[in-house]
């Protein structure tokens, strides 16, 4: 099964028409998903991104999702500080974040494996996470590496806030947004039910047991586990058109 396309389509479905979505660096799957959403069910979504561009008209997705080329054909130039100001007014609807670790409460870690001062692995850092995870209307978390090492009981370091310990009210910490709405992995799509992570659907090619065996905490399993909806012909065509160079596969290598 074509997992990149499956993930892209799942991401695209998280964007509603008229909403503002934002992607950061190292996010070709998200960039393609945003393009896909805009060219299918969400023509009025506002595409904003780390390339400081609003509604770009680019020909094809770039390996760097901060590429200056994304400015061409945009309806506006909006700097990162300006975009963050707008997010701080509660007007950024959806933000997508990757996580090297993702825990059962939707917290993400892009900082360190191990101790902060003496890390086993120093990761690149969370970029906008600690800010936007509290500001965006909701966050969508993704990983292309669904495994016990990625999907963990508790992240070593909370870079991006999910539901934290699962008990605290995010609003009491100044959150403007609701927190993680979905986790999209190479194996399935997950949502949160009473602050626990729940299986929404499993991608074709994987079984429920694949998912459970590769998750480092107890997932909530619904009565009926759906299969993730497959990309349509039209969706695949749009994905291929915007990504002829197959950049969507880089993260799976």
């Amino acid at each position: 099964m074509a997992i990149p396309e499956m993930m892209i389509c799942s991401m695209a479905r998280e964007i509603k028409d008229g909403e503002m979505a934002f992607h950061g660096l190292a996010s070709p799957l998200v960039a393609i998903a945003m393009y896909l959403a805009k060219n299918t069910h969400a023509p009025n979504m506002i595409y904003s991104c780390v390339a400081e561009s609003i509604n770009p008209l680019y020909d094809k997705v770039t390996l760097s999702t901060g590429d200056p080329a994304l400015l061409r054909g945009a309806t506006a130039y909006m700097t990162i500080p300006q975009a963050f100001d707008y997010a701080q007014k509660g007007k950024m609807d959806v933000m997508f974040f990757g996580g090297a670790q993702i825990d059962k409460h939707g917290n993400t870690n892009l900082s360190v494996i191990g101790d902060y001062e003496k890390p086993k692995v120093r990761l690149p850092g969370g970029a906008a996470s600690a800010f936007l995870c509290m500001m965006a209307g909701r966050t969508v978390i993704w990983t292309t590496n669904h495994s016990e090492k990625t999907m963990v009981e508790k992240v070593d370091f909370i870079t991006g806030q999910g539901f934290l310990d699962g008990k605290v009210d995010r609003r009491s910490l100044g959150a403007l947004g609701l927190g993680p709405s979905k986790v999209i992995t190479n194996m399935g799509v997950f949502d949160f039910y009473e602050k626990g992570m729940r299986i929404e659907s499993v991608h074709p090619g994987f079984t429920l047991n694949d998912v459970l065996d590769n998750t480092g905490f107890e997932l909530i399993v619904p009565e009926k586990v759906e299969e993730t909806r497959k990309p349509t012909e039209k969706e695949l065509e749009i994905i291929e058109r915007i990504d002829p160079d197959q950049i969507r596969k880089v993260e799976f290598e």
Partner: protein
Amino acid sequence: MKEKLLTLKEAASSIDDHSSVAIGGMSFHRAPMALVREMVKQTRKGLTLIGREEGLSFDLLIGSNCVKKALAAYIGFENLGLAPNFRKKVEKGEIKFEEHACQSIVTGLRASAMGLPFLPTRGFLGSDVMGVHNGRDLRVIDSPFTGEKLVAVRAIEPDVTIIHAQMSDPYGNTRIIGQMFEDDLMVKAAKKVIVTAEEIVDTDDIRKHPEMTAIPHFMVDGVVKAPKGAYPCSCYCYYDADMDHFREYLDLCRKGALDGYIDKYVR
């Protein structure tokens, strides 16, 4: 207006060891790489680097033992992989990394650019990024009118800011075409500013479009003519990022052969 033209060599020499240096650009784009390479060549020591989302400029200086501390929200090579030298030096405890989120770098630079000791921001609470700063540079405050909890970010005032731009006149009137990447904030926040530029243009040309001057001359201390000065990073409207060069860098570093890279591209 005073002419401020310098050679790359003079510009790099003017950056003191142990100073804090903000570096313009973002990720693979418009970092002042020619000047960074010259700094490596001159073996600057003990620098504190400041940036938001950084790549080769930080990793090369860190790998070349020029750096004692870095402040940033991201240091990496996007989907080409982790920053090998940054990662190694932090894991070995050889440099200190103060992890920020983009917004605290932006807010700290903005504070300094505005001549203020701090600015407030929302967010951050609940993230372990707060703990990294332990009240030193990020601190919870009560908003004076509403009582809301906000986070105060201490002003970030680099000793030197270095950026690469498409054009400058000899006095430092600088045009940045396309994305700004906070280069303007870094300039306004800093005690001293060096601009490298693809082209040195006449002030008469600058005067034709004052609204295109991203940085006015009086904020600039040195101007260097540096064609291809961002390479291998992109420079919008001039050249794209050379991804093969970045791949070569990463391959060599992963093999422990940073010296080979430096021999080939820096010395």
